[in-house]
């Protein structure tokens, strides 16, 4: 699974992206976030308030209960502020 981080989520995690293979069953975005949070304080800090983090799967916005699979691109970022 390809994971991307943007803006302050990227800064808190300390990575712009990574390939991951969770060692527990991960079926939804929420599962993925819970698993990521177990990987270190940097992840725990980035996802401390999941309501502040937006998610896209394969470049489409999704809700936290959306399905994710091994071949998906999952991106985490703050609410957008363009324009």
């Amino acid at each position, binding site marked *: 699974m390809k994971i991307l981080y*943007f803006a302050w989520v990227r800064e808190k995690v300390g990575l712009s992206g990574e390939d991951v293979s969770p060692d527990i069953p991960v079926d939804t975005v929420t599962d993925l976030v819970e698993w990521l949070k177990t990987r270190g304080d940097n992840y725990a800090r980035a996802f401390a308030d999941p309501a502040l983090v937006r998610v*896209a799967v394969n470049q489409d*916005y999704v809700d936290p209960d959306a399905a994710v699979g091994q071949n998906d691109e999952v*991106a985490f970022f*703050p*609410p*957008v502020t*363009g*324009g």
Partner: protein
Amino acid sequence: MSIQVQQHDFDVAREMKDLTAGNPAIGGVCMFVGLVRDMAGDDSISSMTLEHYPGMTEKALEDIEAEALARWPLQSTRIIHRYGQLQPGDQIVFVAATSRHREAAFEACHFLIDWLKTKAPFWKLESGPEGGHWVDARTSDDEATKRWQQKE
């Protein structure tokens, strides 16, 4: 589709020419240009850095443009959004719509910038004397987007 995500500046006069060239059916052009302000609340800003999600950004802008073309009888549209480091006074974003009669161009132009603000994956980092901070999403932008949802 005529969307562009770029680091370099754009020329409004040239965009206007491109939007209307060879189409005498166009009776009106409405354009919006967003600039970098020098203040954020009470803090002064020395520069602003725009980050985006390559791939998803283009897709989101194409969707926004397609939505405008589906809702209004437009002759042409254009969206340009810059990324990278910008200074106060710099142009950030350009949206434009042309139509036979002005109402469609006015409404579509307003719609394009409102939707872009809440849907295109860009993030602003403001830098000033106090250091850098990420701009928070504004509730007023969400409200502006809702207005167009009610019109559906």
